[in-house]
């Protein structure tokens, strides 16, 4: 009897210990690349090749994680950020991503840059069930939770922005004749689709010329000449920084004076307006969702001071005028927020669950712009503000508008 009772007690004790251990294990769940002290994140960026200008973003993200680590990491874990060069070549992206996932054993891939490059790994990531989070491309296909539950975009999709430009034209231009310059790929075509969707039936009459270029073209001068000769009074520029700077120069050289609409991909003073000539760039209208680091108004805000302090300490080689550095700063914060929300449950499943459960405002986002996601909404940013370049900086000329 006595021994029997002891045995029961002992068994109960063991069971209790087992239960405690069980709950402890439930609290701390780790996916690949996570330890008590470390979280491994992977990334591909074009540090070389035709799109190398975007490499700035990868460097900014690296610098932001440095700050996070110096301040104690996320829930006590350091972020180890492995960013590899893919030269904007899809096969290379696949090779580098497989290296990150299979050899480096990263928890997830964050902010891979480029549309064709991310397309090359889209199926691979979803088959392998590895989060492909906040891809740095505005293509529309990244917000498809039903078919691709492991992939999520971040910035406003190109189609969304195209729609907003359409709305702007309809409200502000009498008898618009639109000439479009676009890059001949998903990115370029998505903008045009968005614009046409917003213009509706009027698209056919309002759009008088469409010219495309290849990312490997040396210049786009002939396209601009054709657009001018079409008699357009609105020029919608859907090109990457190098070509945008060329377009601005050529438009002014030809003494063409249309309403100049510029896509946010190239809406940067440091890498576009400055090389194109500040005087040349006067009057250009674009849409924004984060603050322009060159504007004196921005520079007086608390948000900017924090950003600048980060730049000087962690990214001293970075250009204080380049908005890519703001972009990287914001994207990295979103990632940190997801990791924080996930707490000690750092499995790939829970990461996706928390990424689809965001509602946040951030320093350096324009007032009114928020990051919102849900299990059915994989488009984090869907609001923007129209701004105009006045020769020195971007001045807002309206209120934040939402896609619908």
């Amino acid at each position, binding site marked *: 009897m006595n021994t029997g009772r002891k045995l029961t007690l002992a068994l109960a004790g063991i069971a209790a210990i087992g239960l405690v251990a069980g709950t402890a294990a439930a609290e701390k769940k780790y996916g690949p690349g996570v330890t008590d002290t470390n979280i491994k994140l992977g990334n591909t960026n074009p540090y070389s090749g035709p799109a190398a200008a975007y490499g700035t973003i990868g460097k900014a993200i690296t610098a932001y994680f440095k700050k996070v680590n110096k301040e104690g990491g996320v829930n006590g874990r350091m972020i180890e950020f492995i960013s590899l060069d893919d030269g904007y070549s*899809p*096969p290379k992206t696949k090779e580098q991503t497989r290296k990150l996932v299979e050899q480096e054993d990263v928890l997830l891939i964050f902010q891979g840059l480029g549309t064709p490059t991310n397309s090359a790994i*889209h199926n691979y990531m979803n088959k392998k069930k590895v989060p492909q989070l906040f891809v740095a491309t505005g293509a529309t296909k990244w917000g498809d939770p039903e078919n691709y539950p492991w992939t999520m975009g971040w910035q406003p999709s190109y189609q969304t922005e195209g729609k907003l430009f359409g709305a702007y034209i309809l409200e502000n231009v009498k008898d618009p004749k639109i000439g479009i310059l676009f890059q001949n790929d998903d990115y370029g075509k998505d903008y045009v689709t968005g614009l046409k969707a917003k213009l509706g039936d009027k698209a056919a009459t309002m759009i008088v010329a469409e010219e495309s270029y290849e990312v*490997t073209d040396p210049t786009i001068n002939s396209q601009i000449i054709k657009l001018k000769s079409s008699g357009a009074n609105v020029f919608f520029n859907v090109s990457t920084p190098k070509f945008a700077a060329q377009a601005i120069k050529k438009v002014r050289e030809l003494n063409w004076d249309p309403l100049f609409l510029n896509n946010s991909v190239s809406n940067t003073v440091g890498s576009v307006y400055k090389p194109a000539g500040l005087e040349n760039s006067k009057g250009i209208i674009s849409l924004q969702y984060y603050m322009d680091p060159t504007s004196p108004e921005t520079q007086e805000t608390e948000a900017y001071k924090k950003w600048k302090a980060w730049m000087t300490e962690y990214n001293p080689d970075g250009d204080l005028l380049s908005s890519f550095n703001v972009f990287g700063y914001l994207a990295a914060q979103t990632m940190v927020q997801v990791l924080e929300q996930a707490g000690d449950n750092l499995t790939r499943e829970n990461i996706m669950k928390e990424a689809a459960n965001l509602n946040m405002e951030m320093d350096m986002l324009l007032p009114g712009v928020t990051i919102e996601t849900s299990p059915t909404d994989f488009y984090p940013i869907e609001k923007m503000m129209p701004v105009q370049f006045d020769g020195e900086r971007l001045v807002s000329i309206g209120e934040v508008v939402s896609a619908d």
Partner: protein
Amino acid sequence: MTTDVETKVDPRLTSGARINVKWVAVFVILGVLFPFFIDGYTSFQMTLTIIYAIAILGLNLLTGFNGQFSLGHSAFYAIGAYTAAILVYHLDFPVYVTIPIGGVVCFVAGFLFGLPALRLNGLYLALATFALAVAVPQILKSSHLEGLTGGVQGLDIFRPDVPEVLVNTFAMTMDQWWYLISFGIMLLLFWAAWNLINSRSGRAMMAIRDNPIAAQSMGINTSLYKSLTFGVSAFYTGIAGALAAIVIEFVAPDSFTFQLSILLFIGLVVGGTGSIWGAIFGGLFILMVPNIAEEVSTGLSYAVFGVILILVIYVMPSGIVGLVDILKVRLKKKL
């Protein structure tokens, strides 16, 4: 009865060279066993190396053995890749069948392109093929073909599972399976190239390279041989392209830019022009060296790549195979 003079003649000219069976056997055995000792990612990389080696061998047949320059082989690579992708994606062809079809389509394309190219020599031919390399990505993106090629979006290819027998007996993975397929195809194509080079046709090809006028006056149909060489070269590159599309499981125009042509050309020169085995070294070089360069310096990877390339060319002016030959001769002298 043979005389002394005749016995000293290069045996290649009389009886054809012989394959060194011992070394080839060692190479084949090591090559087959290799994927079972490495991880999936390395298998994948080695598969890419093999694919590049096949494409480089194709270029070598044209440039190294026939003396025609091409900066357009990325175009044939793309045609092979898209042939495979379109057949699988739209027509549900079994992937295995699409590999030879990709090669045959490229043979036809290469032969046809070879006909007008006959009138062009040296630099002019290089320019014409360059035009081809630049045009193809644009054509693939054009809105007229978008329904077929998927335009800028590209096409996805899904590979069938590894045959069950192999999974059960060897626990074979997808990466190992496709490594072995590529390796087998490479061996087959290398063997075919070896036989071609050491045949009457091969000698005709080389004679045209060395002295076209003399070759013609000996009765060689130069224009036919040149076009055929173009076709065969494109065939090899097309097979490589089709394999690449299947192994990467995705094709997009941006995968086949002019830069790919340059890379293949670099692989050719570094491996050694006029050598069959050199292609493997060339493939290794163009896959590995950019990765090494990136590890040295992310921001200056191209500069580092350039420096390595210049060093390699200075140290090994006749390619890696040339270096191996020189070392062999020196070793023999010392012994």
